Structure formats: structure tokens, C-alpha cells
């Protein structure tokens, strides 16, 4: 049930999100560090440029995304991003076709390893995009995840 309404919400999200965002401004303004515009961006490009200041990126083979090929439950999709790159300062996880694609951004200190995992929600079948900021430039990788609506094929 929850999943269905979430899906509906994602579709209606683009029109509704602005209104919702407005209602949330008060508590958010306390946390200046939270990149609100990046989380409200409607496209991968916008989210990246809002978060990192640029959307220029290179596809990199040095990034691995571990996520299921088929996710039965779009509300809980485990995603692990691993990279062997050096000087990684941030890893962002973006769900390409969600109403607001940016799911999470992890800022990593110099002693942190280039590995983060979490679980995200996905409205439908789409690519998960991992963005790794390393040495001041952006590197990306994608992985397609099929989301089975209804949970039993289809």
C-alpha cells in the first residue's frame, strides 16, 4: 500500500513538490548546510550542478555500483557505491527518474574510504547514478535497476 501511494506520489511529485517545499522552509532554514536546491532539482543535471557547482562529468570505470538488477520493493533498494579512486571528497547517489532525483550525498574526509552504502526509494525502473567527486572533477557510473511494481512480476 505504501509503495503504491509512493509511486503515485512520484508521478504527481513534479507539480506538488514546489508547494510541499514551501511548507518546509522554516525548519530547513535552520540547517544552512543542507543543499535544498539540489534536493529539489528535477533532473540529474540540475541536481549535480546545484550540488557540485558543475554538471560536467566523465563516465568512469573505476566506480562500482552494487544494487539489485531487479528490485521487488522500490521503497527499499540497497545501493553500495565503491570506488578505488584517490582523493574522493564526495559520493552522491542519484535515482534518475525520481521526482527529485538526488537521494543522498556523502561528504568524505580524507581518511574515509571510497565506499558508502545505504538504501533508497525508487519510483519505477530507472538508472541509479553514482557521482564521485575526486580531485575536483566529477566521475559517474550508472546501473539500471528494474523495479517490479506490485512485487510479483509484471
Amino acid at each position: 500500500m505504501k509503495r503504491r501511494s509512493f509511486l503515485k506520489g512520484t508521478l504527481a511529485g513534479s507539480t506538488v513538490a514546489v508547494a510541499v517545499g514551501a511548507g518546509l522552509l522554516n525548519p530547513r532554514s535552520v540547517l544552512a548546510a543542507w543543499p535544498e536546491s539540489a534536493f529539489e532539482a528535477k533532473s540529474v543535471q540540475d541536481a549535480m550542478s546545484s550540488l557540485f557547482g558543475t554538471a560536467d562529468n566523465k563516465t568512469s570505470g573505476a566506480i562500482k555500483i552494487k544494487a539489485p538488477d531487479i528490485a521487488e520493493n522500490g521503497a527499499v533498494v540497497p545501493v553500495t557505491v565503491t570506488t578505488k579512486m584517490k582523493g574522493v571528497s564526495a559520493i552522491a547517489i542519484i535515482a534518475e527518474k525520481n521526482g527529485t532525483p538526488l537521494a543522498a550525498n556523502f561528504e568524505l574526509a580524507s581518511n574515509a574510504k571510497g565506499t558508502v552504502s545505504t538504501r533508497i526509494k525508487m519510483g519505477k525502473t530507472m538508472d541509479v547514478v553514482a557521482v564521485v567527486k575526486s580531485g575536483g572533477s566529477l566521475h559517474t557510473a550508472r546501473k539500471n535497476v528494474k523495479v517490479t511494481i506490485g512485487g510479483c512480476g509484471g
Partner: protein
Amino acid sequence: MATSIRIRAKAKGNEVTVKALITHPMETGVRKNKKTGEKIPAHFIQEVKCEHGGKTVVNAQWGPAVSKNPYLSFAFSGAKAGDTVKLSWVDNKGKSDSAEAKVK
């Protein structure tokens, strides 16, 4: 309510892997209450911070697309068994919580 976070940190050589589970509804703000048709207000964690020895190791910003009862895991070097790692979060309603764990 320090019970919202379950955190474990394990050392292997020079590396420490931290795994944490946070209890939180992570409402997106676009879901509707089926009976009343009213929107359920957004309520989600915006920032998660992990500190070790007074330094921030990982500072994460989350949107509502992170799943309910979020899980996160990461690793860092420069810590040893017996050290303390601290994890804290703040949500969009200004609520927060933190928990500490000893590296094993």
C-alpha cells in the same frame, strides 16, 4: 531518545567499518493518507554526521528518497579498536539524535 540509532564499528587492520541503522519514518511529503486524502507532511533526515576523535569523517546530506529506517555503512582509516565513533542526525523538523559506539 538515544535509541533511534544502532551503530557498530569494527576494525580490520587499520580500517574501521561503520554500520548504522536509524529508526525514522522518512516521509517524502508526497504520500497521502488514504482515508482522509490529506498529505502526510514530509519528515526525513537531512544530515548525518560521523565523527572520530573530534574530526568529521563522513557528513551525509539526505533527501526524502532515502528509505524508511535508513541504513548506512562506510569505512575509514586511522582508528583502532577501543576508539569511539559518534553518529548524529538532524531531520527537517529540527529533531536530532546521536549515538556512540566503541570500535571493536
